[in-house]
């Protein structure tokens, strides 16, 4: 029986270790990108750790809870949930290939 070769295969079930980029650079999937107006963004403009609803709602975990708020564009899929949830409407979705405006 060729049992040893089965034992050596660490991927008998399809396994992934939770890690940044495990599924590839998912930012490539994006059609629209979020653009933050830091003059409107609450933590950025008030220089206070407040709001961060974009960080809370982002399904990909690519929003950094920082001042100013940053989004990791390598992995942002462009879903637009942050723009939808932002209370002062500081985030606009801009089509890729077009200027931030």
């Amino acid at each position, binding site marked *: *029986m*060729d*049992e040893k070769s*089965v*034992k050596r*295969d*660490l*991927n*008998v*079930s*399809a*396994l*992934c*270790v*939770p*890690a*940044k*980029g*495990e*599924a*590839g650079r998912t930012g490539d999937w994006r059609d629209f990108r979020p653009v933050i107006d830091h003059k409107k963004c609450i933590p950025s403009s008030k220089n206070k750790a407040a709001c961060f609803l974009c960080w809370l709602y982002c399904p990909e975990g690519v929003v950094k809870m920082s001042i100013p708020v940053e989004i990791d564009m390598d992995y942002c899929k462009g879903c637009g949930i942050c723009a939808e949830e932002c209370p002062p409407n500081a985030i606009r979705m801009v089509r890729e290939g077009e200027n931030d405006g």
Partner: protein
Amino acid sequence: MADVRILTGNEAAALGVKLCRPNVVAAYPITPQSQLAEILSRYVEGGEMRAEYVRVEGEHSALTVCISASTVGARTFTATSSNGLLYMHEQLHWAAGSRLPVVMCVVNRGVGAPWSIFNDQQDSLAQRDTGWIQLYCRDNQEIIDTIIQAYWIAESLYIPVMVCYDGFVLSHTMMPVDIPDAEEVRGFLPPYKAHTLLTPEAPRTINSVLFPWRRLNPEGVLCDGYMEMRYKLQAAMTRAHGVIRKANDDFAGVFGRDHGGLVWKYRCEDAELVFSGMGSIANEATVAADLLREEGIPAGVAGVRTYRPFPREEAAEALRGAKALVVLQKGLSYGYEGCLTSDLKAALYGTPLLIPVVDVVAGLGGRDVKAREIAGAGRDAWKDLQAGKLENRSLWLNCYTGEDHAG
């Protein structure tokens, strides 16, 4: 000293499961499997079996519980029949694709519609392509012995195994059964070692989306894509031929009973008219072969015990001297023919055996099939052969197929 008891097939199965010491049992009752689930729950409740019995709301969940428990290192068991098995269908693929050695008894029953509680094998035949190993039992002794072998096979290959036996014909019929010694079973079947353990200490995601291509993970290791994972299942299935044979032979060495591995033979050596089939109907065919032998017709039986992986070489070898083949089966691929007929014909392709094959659909929904009726089908095939009629044909045994039923 031998411990021989008079048992139903379900009772034999329950004892077999207990001897294999599973950690988790999850099953939902359905006729004719119910007795098996009930006995196992009684074993757990009474402390005879140190297992968790998970009560679930249906068969899809029953297998899901086994999949989850197997992923964290538990030996698992479930059992079902008919529409319950169909309800599991999605998770059958999931268990095989995850390479989890779940063992399940399928107590074969016809599928609805129309409702039938009675025996045929359409339920498990319809799961042929899910990536499970399928073993078919002839009698109650073979059920208890096959369950023990099934765990050994499943855990050697990381492929789930179905142990199939005919509803009522075996499940509710009493026969003498020699119960294997618990210590000897312990020696034969070592504890389950999972290929991967999901634990909080080493968190991983299992079976997330794989893309069509192979890919580098964040550590730069080239990982299998979907197609490689599927290839490995097929490769393991190919390796399963030898593993099933070894399980059979090692079991025979310890317990003294040889059930034939992949294909069993009855009076096949000089047989020119060979019956084939799976489960109890193939056992019935041995009586038919004896009847035909009394008439001077050299008949035998090549019974298929392992349906997946399909024993192409063993089947062709068993049929080496045959001049006609009569395939008895309790299930078919609608719009073509009996599933076993197609597989046996394919096994003969590329061999010099261009023999006529009679495709016999029999016993659907519990329709009785007697040995003399099987002998009759064999006798007709023999007469055709003597008359030089060599074409393949199909028939529905003991079924009214008049003009007004011609569709």
